[in-house]
């Protein structure tokens, strides 16, 4: 197993490499001259040339890439000019907040999605199945940023059950209950779409598995229907749903951009949106690289879990 994980980690390296190329190329296609953008349109040509040399922009594209790659491998993502602090410091600080939010949402959507999917499949065409199917459709069609606003209106403004924004109370907060109190609404909002997707796929996977010969064998052995469904069928369905959960990690990390903005959660998503507005491109670059790398690792973890469950993949 350790060998397998090592192999997968090695296989992730070219992917990370490719990610870095894409991010670099996107940033390289910025129209206009970054130095002018930073210094403003009244900068003297000498200053522009000097800044270009400082930024390494007078070199060829591949050279620039290698220098940039070498720097980020040493943890040097440059300096955010708007915040005037190292990009990496800011990104890591923000990313931990995002991880709390996205991680909670991912756990929520996995549990709820699997549960709903299994119930839906077991009660196929029953009332529960129909209700879940409709809820799932509504869930995946609802703009999460709008849902967040609605939840704030209802639960923070009307009945004042949860705070409307932030990660901790400004005065006297900072402990775990305070965090959970602030976390509930945004994590729930973030989980809705992914829950729908996972529920849908779990239902299909369960229905497919329940038609398999080995389910007939389990029944022929005289196992209780509960055991047939929750042990034999569910385990097999889980194997095909796990990669989907891995993919949903990407949607949840991405969706965090909206949710963090709506709930003013101090994560990397709201940082990115601000950075884009202030044209703080190094910060954008650093944030995107870190989140994308985290996503690659998420998928790797999903792969490993799937392999643990399915001996045929070993």
């Amino acid at each position, binding site marked *: 197993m350790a060998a397998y994980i090592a192999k997968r980690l090695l296989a992730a390296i070219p992917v990370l490499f490719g990610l870095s190329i894409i991010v670099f190329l996107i940033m390289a296609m910025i129209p206009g001259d970054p130095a002018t953008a930073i210094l403003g349109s009244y900068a003297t040509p000498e200053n522009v040339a000097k800044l270009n040399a400082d930024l390494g922009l007078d070199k060829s594209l591949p050279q620039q890439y290698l220098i940039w790659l070498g720097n980020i491998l040493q943890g040097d993502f440059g300096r955010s000019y708007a915040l005037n602090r190292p990009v990496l410091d800011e990104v890591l600080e923000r990313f931990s907040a995002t991880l709390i939010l996205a991680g909670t949402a991912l756990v929520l959507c996995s549990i709820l999605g699997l549960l709903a999917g299994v119930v839906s499949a077991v009660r196929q065409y029953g009332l529960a199945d129909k209700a879940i199917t409709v809820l799932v459709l509504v869930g995946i069609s609802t*703009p999460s940023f709008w849902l967040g606003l609605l939840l704030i209106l209802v639960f923070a403004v009307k009945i004042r059950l949860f705070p409307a924004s932030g990660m901790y109370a400004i005065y006297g907060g900072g402990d775990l209950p305070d965090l959970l109190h602030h976390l509930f609404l945004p994590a729930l909002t973030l989980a809705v779409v992914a829950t729908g997707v996972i529920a849908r796929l779990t239902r299909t996977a369960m229905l497919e598995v329940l038609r398999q010969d080995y389910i007939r064998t389990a029944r022929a052995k005289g196992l209780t229907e509960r055991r047939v469904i929750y042990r034999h069928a569910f385990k097999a369905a889980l194997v095909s749903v796990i990669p989907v959960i891995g993919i949903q990690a990407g949607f949840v990390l991405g969706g965090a951009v909206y949710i963090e903005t709506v709930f003013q959660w101090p994560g990397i998503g709201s940082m990115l949106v601000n950075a884009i507005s202030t044209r703080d491109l190094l910060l954008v670059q650093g944030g995107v690289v870190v989140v994308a790398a985290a996503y690659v690792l998420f998928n790797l973890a999903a792969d490993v879990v799937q392999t643990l469950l399915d001996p045929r993949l070993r």
Partner: protein
Amino acid sequence: MSDTAAAGSAGRMHKPRKRGRPSTLRLLFNNTLATTGLAVLVAIVLAALAAPLLPLPDPDVTAPADRLLRPLAEGHLLGTDALGRDILSRLIWGTRVSLAVGLSATLIAAFFGSLIGLVAGYAGGRVDTFLMRGVDMVMAFPYILLALAIVAALGPGLINALYAIAVINIPFFARNIRGITIGLSRREFVDAARLSGKSSAAILFGEVLPNVLPVIIITMSTTIGWMILETAGLSFLGLGAQPPQADLGSMLGDGRKILFTAPHVSIIPGLMIFALVMSINLFGDGVRDVLDPRLKSGALTRPVARTAVAQEREAEPRRHSGSVLDVVGLNTQFHIGGDIYRAVGGVDLHLKPGECLGIVGESGSGKSVTAMSLMGLVPTPPGRITAGSAWLEEEDLFSVDDERIRQLRGADVSHVFQDPLSTLHPLFTIGDQLTEAIMAHRPMRRSQADEKAEELLRLVRITNPAERLKVYPHELSGGMRQRVCIAMALANDAKVIIADEPTTALDVTVQAQILSLLDALRRESNAAILFITHDFGVVSAVCDRVAVMYAGRIVETGETEVVLARPAHPYTGKLIDCVPVLGQPGRRLDAIEGRPPVVNNLPAGCAFAARCERAEADCREGDIPLAAFGEGRAVRCLHPLKGEAADA
């Protein structure tokens, strides 16, 4: 998601047929949800298209005096926003923008994605590797994050947001289309086009593209909702539409700043996005269901734990008092889309303790359904037991409750199925599956069950049983797996073992081993065996008696040697002629001409008449009974063979 949907439709795609369309449309309209979705979508699209013609105030004219009017205010049906602009007007104009952007993004993504998929799938080799690696790289990003990076580089703006959303959706199209194209490029009509000297481009766009179009449409219908949602999202973040231009997302974003004082300003555009996306998803799901046959009409229906028994079924009394199993007048039907398939049409059979009865017939003769009906293992839907009884000693298996059936399954009556790879659970060890079978009926500690499982493996002549308990089914050979299945069937000293083609999936040499193992075990344990097979060679090796089935009924039954030596029914004769005999290389191996009749439309009279050289006029009318034919024999034939060769 759409990956699997598309892959499923790949297998059945032919050249487009004209006749397919009306039924497709009808199917779509039968789906109420899809129709509702379409109706809402059409209403929204029409309103958006008609925006310039509608008597609406200018969406951009500000009126500070009328700011933040609530909905239903005089002259402003949906109220006004922070600048006093009419929300209804802005909503309709905003919808127009959102629709246009979403549709354009979808078209761009579909165009480039399909192009990449077509070229990669058709060219294969290095081109394929290169293109798909690039696609994989794009997919390695969390969905919206890449869009943010692109907008960051290009700068905020509606067109840039459109490009960003289109780019991140290209991979979905590329992957789906590539999969289909690979399948299509190996098809005959593509080969034919190639041989006729057409250029690659002509083949790709003339032959392959038309067949790929449905998949492109499915993928578009499943992604357009997303794209509208995501462009709205970018606008909401202030990265899409810039003032004074407004789409639904930027309206929502503007409203957010005054959420607490004037919630309607943000709720209304959000509701519109929701309605739009929901209607597209409903309609898209309908389109996908219609175009993807795998998901159509109950194809993915979950079989319940036990075959349904019709309420109007009348129990039949036992006929053979000494028997362990006595099946009387069994009828099992499949109800599929209004058709009734009479898979088993009145079967009687009985088993004495320790006896082996073979049921022989071609595929589709109803022999497996007969066997699976007994313990309720025929999938429902569509299966249904409509008449008859199955007496296991003193109990009618079709009358007892579900819990009793569960207790009997694997205990008094056990099963051995055909393909041991698919019948063993791939994710549990042999030991897990064996001990589970034991403990389902005899509660005991796991360590005890492990010992018992080891003993069972030894019983079926598996060496190193303790080691084998820890392995997974895929780590064993086919013969070994079937031995494990037999061990499982023996776990609780069954009185009856139902063996459904247990040797069909195995090599010939392994077949012989398994047969002699089964035969030896039955003599040791005195279990009766109901042995389903299509092979008379196998019957002669293990069965005491044999029943030949055709079109859901028994056509001949008797002692194995007698039937083998002097078949009475012409069909039995032909089946026996299909068996090769060692040492007689010159013997003719006849395949039986023609096909068995479809059991939803059986002819009157003898079902075999159409394939029988001996058939006469009287064979084609009335019901032909299974008549006694000497000692312990019966045959359902008006002109049975009397010792002469079958094809004389």
